[in-house]
């Protein structure tokens, strides 16, 4: 297994993303047609058999969410596409929006039909001006051809989609913060339960899925859930888009089946590290993911393996860091990021990220003691266990993982700091 498995990216490169005719020529919107000819329960069976899990990071089973929304009788119901890809090191959703926008719309339509939802939103981060322009054109073209609006394909099915722009806030990728932002408020999360499928956008039942997840829906209708589940591994079915960046020859987005090793992805697809340097560590998933040493690269891409790090790293970024870089320099940037992006609603995240940054800076500046190490360790645990949303819970992941895998670096730095501890 050394090559890409192009399933949801199969059309990319063959179609002009701004031409709906190109998309239609490549069998675009035929899976919507197929879905509309199926009974809803059949569609749900396919999603259940596919064992598809969300691609935005948390890896929640898609069929469970779809069924939960389908069962709600309150109307209107919403389908929301989470295109607030702000996790450093991730760019696969931008890649999909800029190169294959109609497939995302088709996925949203299938979701809406299966759950009897009538209104959709795509929440795109404000930084993605180009993706927003392309998605808007795709929506306009789809509406003009009768794929959006009333009585789609002459069926008793009506659905339309609007774009909402983010305004530079990472936490809005968290589902409740995102819904708050669509409602025109500051992006601060809500306490859950209730979950969005029962009380979501404007207090109504809402399905919220990531761009990549929704773009996979047409493939599942096409192949059938069972055939889809045969791709990948026992525990993680299908393909995953990997955003490969950092010190690597070929940066970019690659679609691979679950079960491929990170070493294969980095060396065979990414062409390895340039300039004769060696890999020192990689960060998985983005700023919220663990940093692991080179010797662990034979680990395969799989939800269950990632969960061993107590973090949800399903968004699929791999940031390669070569031997010229210092682990504390990297940690300082990650901590500064979270300190800036915390919404401030809950104390462990608001205060915790500030103190985490201050403590990491002591290590950067050769100014650290054993006490700082202990403080960092307990702070990271508290933040992970008590923060209200995924941001605060995963902000300390990089620190926690390095405390484990790069412990000698911490101990050496304390020794080199040469500070007299106050007695």
């Amino acid at each position, binding site marked *: 297994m050394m090559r890409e498995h192009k399933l949801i990216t199969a059309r990319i490169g063959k179609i002009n993303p701004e031409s709906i005719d190109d998309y239609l020529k490549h069998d675009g919107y035929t899976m919507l047609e197929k879905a509309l000819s199926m009974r809803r329960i059949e569609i749900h069976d396919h999603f259940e058999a596919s064992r598809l899990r969300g691609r935005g990071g948390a890896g929640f089973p898609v069929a469970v969410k779809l069924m939960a929304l389908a069962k709600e009788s309150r109307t209107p119901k919403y389908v929301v596409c989470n295109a607030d890809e702000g996790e*450093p090191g991730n*760019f696969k959703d931008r890649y999909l929006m800029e190169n294959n926008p109609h497939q995302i719309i088709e996925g949203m339509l299938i979701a809406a039909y299966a759950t009897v939802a009538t209104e959709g939103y795509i929440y795109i981060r*404000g930084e993605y001006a180009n993706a927003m322009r392309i998605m808007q054109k795709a929506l306009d073209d789809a509406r003009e051809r009768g794929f959006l609006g009333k009585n789609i394909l002459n069926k008793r099915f009506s659905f339309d989609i609007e774009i909402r*722009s983010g*305004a530079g806030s990472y936490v809005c990728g968290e589902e409740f913060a995102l819904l708050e932002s669509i409602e*025109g408020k500051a992006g601060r999360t809500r306490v859950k339960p209730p979950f969005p499928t029962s009380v979501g956008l*404007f207090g109504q039942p809402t399905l919220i899925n990531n761009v990549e997840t929704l773009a996979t829906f047409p493939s599942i209708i096409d192949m059938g859930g069972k055939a889809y589940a045969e791709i990948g591994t026992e525990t993680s079915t299908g393909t995953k888009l990997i955003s490969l960046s950092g010190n690597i020859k070929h940066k970019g987005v690659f679609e691979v089946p679950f079960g491929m090793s990170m070493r294969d992805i980095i060396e065979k697809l990414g062409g390895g590290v340039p300039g004769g340097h060696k890999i020192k560590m990689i960060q998985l998933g983005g700023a919220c993911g663990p940093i692991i040493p080179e010797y662990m690269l034979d680990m395969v891409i799989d939800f269950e393996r990632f969960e061993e790090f107590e973090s949800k790293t399903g968004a699929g970024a791999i940031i390669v860091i070569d031997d010229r870089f210092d682990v504390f320099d990297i940690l300082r940037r990650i901590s500064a990021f979270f300190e800036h992006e915390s919404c401030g609603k809950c104390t462990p995240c608001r205060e915790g990220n500030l103190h985490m940054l201050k403590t990491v800076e002591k290590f950067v500046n050769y100014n650290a003691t054993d006490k700082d190490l202990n403080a960092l360790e307990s702070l990271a645990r508290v933040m992970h266990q008590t923060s209200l949303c995924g941001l605060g819970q995963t902000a300390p992941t990089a620190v926690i993982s390095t405390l484990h895998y790069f412990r000698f670096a911490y101990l050496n730095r304390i020794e080199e700091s040469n500070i007299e501890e106050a007695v």
Partner: protein
Amino acid sequence: MELKRILEKYPKRQDCLIDVLLDVQNTKSTRHLTEVELARVSEHLGLPESHVFSVVSFYSFFSMTPRGKHILQVCRDVPCYLNDTFNVHETLESMLGIKTGDTTEDGLFTLEYSSCLGCCDQAPVMRVNDTVYGNLTPDKLRAIISECRSDDDA
């Protein structure tokens, strides 16, 4: 005048707030919002001013202080850092003669930090208003800045 025209484009719904504010800010060469504008927006959408202010102060895209016509936002996250061989920030600071966060005296440029711009495959990256520039080199930076300057002369 301009403000009125923008407000009329949008339905009087709270969920349009962020889009309205972005629209108002982006049509101004100073790329900032004033208290008067916030009051007008809150009146139009039927929202308390405090709510509008809370949104403006939450999102990093909004500014209540005047900024340059061209806002340079340089990514400072790990994937860009790993590929930044010449220090994009310091290079821009010395080219423009300002510190990060400041605006040049002629009102042309504001230099800002940014969180990840989602273009890590082109690192190091920066954004000038809505346009992303990747694989930056000192020469490219010089070209981008002189292009912005000549845009202004035109």
